[in-house]
């Protein structure tokens, strides 16, 4: 579960990313308290910046949690079933998960696309194509985070060359389609693993026990 030797390269990237985002969130919030209380000043973007990081961490981390079978669930029923029945339920469950993530991916694209001057998909629940006319929303900025100068090039691509004062929304919102794609991918992998019989459930079973074993190891050390 931690960056153990058997952890793959992608594991390490994801784990580092989670740790770094949480660390930055904590430090930015802490710095804002210091700025206000000690220096009677402020970091006006601290609050908004932190909540976006929060969203990034959880949404991207959700795909990691799928990979590691860490999502919370109820295994009391499947625990008492014979293996074949358990396999069937696991297959049904993973299909539900794939369907859900697929719908969310469509929703995430539709929500994000116009912000990035791209067309939404048509269709109520199944994408049947791309809409032909739409209102681009590349100009739509967040509330507090200033536009970083090094991102200057997006001005020409997304805002007809107009200045941005604040970060355009399509940047923080990009995490939605990105994370949904990753989660969909991970659920497909899980489905394959269930099909091949390499795992019999897609929820955390005794996840906590690993952590406790960990605590024990520490106490004994």
């Amino acid at each position, binding site marked *: 579960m931690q960056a153990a030797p058997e952890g793959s390269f992608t594991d390490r990237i994801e784990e580092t990313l989670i740790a770094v985002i949480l660390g930055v969130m904590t430090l930015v919030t802490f710095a804002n308290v210091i700025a*206000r209380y000690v220096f*009677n*000043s*402020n970091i*006006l973007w*601290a*609050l*908004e910046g932190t909540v976006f990081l929060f969203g990034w961490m959880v949404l991207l981390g959700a795909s990691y949690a799928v990979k590691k079978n860490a999502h919370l669930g109820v295994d009391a029923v499947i625990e008492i079933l014979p293996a074949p029945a358990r396999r069937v339920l696991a297959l049904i469950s993973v299909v539900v998960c794939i369907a859900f993530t697929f719908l969310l991916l469509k929703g995430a694209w539709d*929500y994000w696309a*116009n912000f990035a001057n791209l067309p939404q998909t048509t269709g109520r629940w199944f994408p049947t194509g791309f809409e032909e006319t739409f*209102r681009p*929303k590349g*100009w*739509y*900025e967040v*509330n*507090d985070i200033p536009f970083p100068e090094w991102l200057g090039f997006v001005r020409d691509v997304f805002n007809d060359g107009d200045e941005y*004062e*604040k970060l355009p929304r399509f940047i923080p919102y990009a995490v939605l389609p990105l994370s949904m794609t990753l989660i969909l991918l991970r659920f497909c992998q899980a489905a394959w693993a269930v099909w091949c019989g390499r795992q019999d459930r897609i929820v955390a079973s005794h996840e906590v026990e690993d952590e406790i074993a960990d605590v024990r190891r520490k106490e004994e050390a």
Partner: protein
Amino acid sequence: ACDDGEIVIKFSHVTNTDKHPKGIAASLLEQRVNDEMDGVACMEVFPNSTLYDDDKVLEAMLQGDVQLAAPSLSKFETFTKQFRIYDLPFMFKNMEAVDAFQSSDAGQKMMSSMEKRGLAGLAFWHNGLKQFSANKPLIMPEDAKGLKFRVQPSDVLVAQMEALDASPQKMAFSEVYGALQQGVVDGQENTWSNVLGQKYYEVQDGITETNHGVLDYLVVASVDWLDSLEPEVRDQFLTILDEVSVERNAAINEVDMEARQGVLDAGGVIRELTPEQREAWVTVMKPVWEEFTADVGQENIDAAQAINAGL
């Protein structure tokens, strides 16, 4: 609930339904639409930010998931920076000036300038002029120096606080009362109805009657949704909206004074300024205009000032 075949008009806002000026107007609109357009259209009001907050409601509107909203005017500054005129300190002499500017050509043009981005402004709803409050008496602008003021997200309001040498702070609305009470921040600015509704007078030394800014709302719908309505349906709806707006806006001074009296009755302290004292605040804060003249447009500022002069 709506019947089959009726056009569903979802109206999402962020206040209560029976005390706040916006909530009262929304409830009146809901009642009239549901009575007079029965069988054609039906309005569902979602108060108290239960469905969307002011920021997300505009996204949802452009997306087509909500039909009507009335965010505060600062929220439209992303759509057109001209709206920054309403946040500029001491731009309007009183609510009559605000009202006159909003219905003037300049005000109407400003409102319709958002149409290219998909938003149709339908009617302004008043809340009133803003007052300062803090945990110590604010008589002269120097009194605000070094204090931490909670402000809404708006570059103009940040600049206004900096002009006072005060420290602007961002904070979730639900944490403001506690933060004022416990002293995390020292002060805030708001209208009488919000000072009363949020009971800020309980946790502040007093409210100073500066009338330095305006807090109003704009009722909006998406251009695409309006276009999708049958002309007669649209006309009937807009007529009702107009009548409700005129009725509630006409009552705003009365509502405001009731709220002001409510603060007094509840034991709140209100400090009035002499003309000289008020002039001192104007002198310190008015330079903020220059920073935003390019955004707002000199012609709009001139129009507003002409209205002030005529009243």
